[in-house]
């Protein structure tokens, strides 16, 4: 930040005195007073501020709860019950903290959807978007560890199921899980470290949110038209126009939140969360919190092992692709070489992992049939990779979707595809909570297929081929604004 101007800016001499030494008031006025907001920003632009409010509510309620909580396997469950029964307002703090996690995710999911719809991840906001994905990942880690702390049946078994996912990685998996647990099962060392990290991570999130807001204040906010502000006519100062708009939205949001806290505090919770953890009895149906269900459903959608037979078929297909690529790229030698190199790399990688799987598998009675059935990538590992991949795809989204038009308003086909993505995501959320049998499995697989196809096939295709509608020259010329007489 540059040196403060020497002229008197503030009437109050104390404020002036402080500002000359630490220009905090200058900064506040610049970033939150006169900061130019696109004047057409609608209520969907209020969810970032709501998410930040929820983060602060979570930190404040969490710190106070930690003062009454005991992170030990013999005492954790009872200490939470004591918070509920004996600690003054303990019930309120805990219900705020429990439901606060859900409302934090509600705000963030809407915030992300807003970004997808209006193209907020596109140039020049790529880093802003990626930092946001990092916040989302940190939130998931924090929420998962917090779920463990009451040491209920759901806590212990949820942790067991999710940490066991890491055992699916070849070679290092078992050692990695033992290290994560600090033992040979989910036990006291696990609970201790989860508490330490659950306390630490929210402050890390706060730091990353600072970077997110910093990046936002460099590029400025996106807006429903998806065109950058061209002049002062396109913007309004943050205060009072958006402080009041965001403030109103926040009050409505908090009213719904507190309504849930007071009138339906257990609406989003499984009853097995109220039984103490028993490491010898698995509850019949383990489900994560609702905000993880879509990703849990993606995990469960992979049910077929990738075996040597399938690898050989895939290799055959790749070999056939060489002459096809030769014909397809006849005119362009450069593209043809690129296609050959890509196919060659895929084929080489496939051969390599096949040989590796065969070499590391011990067969009691080796035969050709037994070798064909050797598993290269077990279904569970495919699920784990897909689950992490589904979020990591968001990181590279700015380069997957390189359409120059930001807002879905002017992208008629993209708009419909995004609706299908939303429906797929909600379907996954539903099937994630069901037992893995019958039609929910199929529905989950179809939704998973669409999720990946949307990002890996449809978006790159639309970016090149979609016929977009004419984009307004500026926000002021946006017909949506003009019709309202702004």
């Amino acid at each position, binding site marked *: 930040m540059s040196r403060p101007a020497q002229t008197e800016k503030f009437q109050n001499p104390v404020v002036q005195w402080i500002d000359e030494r630490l220009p905090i008031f200058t900064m506040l006025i610049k970033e939150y007073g006169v900061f130019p907001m696109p004047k057409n920003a609608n209520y969907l632009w209020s969810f970032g501020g709501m998410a930040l409010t929820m983060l602060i509510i979570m930190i404040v309620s969490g710190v106070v709860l930690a003062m009454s909580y005991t992170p030990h396997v013999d005492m954790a469950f009872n200490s939470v019950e004591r918070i509920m029964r004996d600690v003054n307002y303990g019930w309120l703090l805990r219900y705020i903290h429990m439901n606060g996690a859900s409302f934090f995710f509600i705000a963030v999911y809407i915030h992300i959807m807003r970004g997808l719809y209006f193209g907020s991840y596109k140039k020049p906001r790529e880093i802003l978007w990626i930092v946001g994905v990092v916040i989302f990942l940190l939130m998931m880690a924090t929420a998962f560890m917090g779920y463990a702390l009451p040491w209920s049946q759901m806590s212990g078994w949820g942790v067991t199921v999710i940490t066991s996912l890491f055992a699916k990685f070849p070679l290092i998996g078992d050692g990695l899980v033992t290290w994560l647990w600090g*033992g*040979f099962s989910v*036990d006291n*060392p696990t609970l201790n470290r989860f508490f330490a990290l659950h306390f630490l991570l929210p402050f890390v999130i706060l730091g990353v949110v600072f970077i997110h807001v910093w990046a936002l204040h460099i590029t400025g906010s996106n807006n429903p038209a998806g065109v950058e502000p061209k002049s002062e006519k396109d913007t309004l100062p943050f205060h009072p126009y958006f402080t009041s708009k965001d403030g109103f939205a926040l009050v409505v949001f908090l009213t719904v939140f507190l309504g849930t806290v007071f009138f339906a505090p257990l609406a989003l919770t499984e009853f097995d969360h109220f039984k103490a953890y028993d490491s010898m009895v698995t509850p*019949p149906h383990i489900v994560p919190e609702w905000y993880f269900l879509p990703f849990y459903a993606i995990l469960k959608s992979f*049910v077929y092992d990738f075996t040597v037979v399938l690898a050989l078929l895939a290799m055959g297909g790749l070999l056939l692709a060489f002459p096809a690529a030769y014909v397809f790229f006849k005119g362009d030698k450069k593209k043809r070489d690129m296609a050959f190199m890509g196919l060659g790399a895929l084929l080489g990688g496939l051969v390599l992992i096949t040989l590796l799987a065969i070499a590391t598998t011990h067969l009691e009675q080796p035969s050709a049939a037994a070798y064909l059935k050797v598993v290269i990538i077990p279904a*569970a590992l495919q699920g784990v990779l897909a689950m992490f991949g589904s979020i990591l795809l968001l990181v590279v989204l700015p380069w997957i979707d390189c359409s120059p038009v930001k807002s879905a308003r002017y992208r008629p086909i993209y708009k419909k595809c995004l609706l299908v993505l939303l429906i797929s995501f909600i379907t996954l959320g539903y099937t994630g909570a069901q037992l893995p049998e019958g039609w929910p499995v199929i529905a989950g697989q179809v939704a998973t297929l669409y999720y990946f196809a949307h990002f890996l096939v449809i978006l790159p295709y639309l970016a090149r081929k979609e016929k977009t509608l004419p984009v307004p020259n500026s926000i002021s010329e946006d017909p949506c604004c003009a019709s309202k007489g702004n």
Partner: protein
Amino acid sequence: MDSTKKQHAAGADGETRRDFLYLTAGAMGAVAAGTAVWPLVDSMSPAADTLALASTEVDVTSIQAGQTITVVWRGKPVFVHRRSAEEIAEVRAEAWQELRDPQSDQSRVKSGHDEWLVLVGVCTHLGCIPMGSKTADVKGDYNGWFCPCHGSHYDKSGRIRKGPAPKNLAVPPYEFVSDTLIRIG
């Protein structure tokens, strides 16, 4: 930097003593950082007292044929099941080569102690505890164990027969200290 000085210090290929110092200082810094981080990382590995609990002894005198007991080994349940001669004959009559995780029943027990089946009671799918050890439990389609979480069915040798689990129930390392005493781990 003064250009004559720079030329003076530079070797024939333009490298300077300073480049070398940067590299060595950087390398030493990396080693120091790694050394400093290792105790932090390794402190999260199982501690000495956790490792000390790594073996469990089980007296199997009181177990009747057809009965299963569950003991705790390393915080995990271990099923010790005593099988009748009919059970053994039945499970060995099946062709195992075509199973998902092909293993013969013989390779899953200690020879000479064929009636004893010792299994880690943790589903190989996502770590739930399969049902089937208690008389009243659901035992699944193969009359062995059934995991309620995602519906994996194991047979009387603890082998995966149906459902999402990729592997048979693990056989922990164990030995017969005497005919009635097993040491697991």
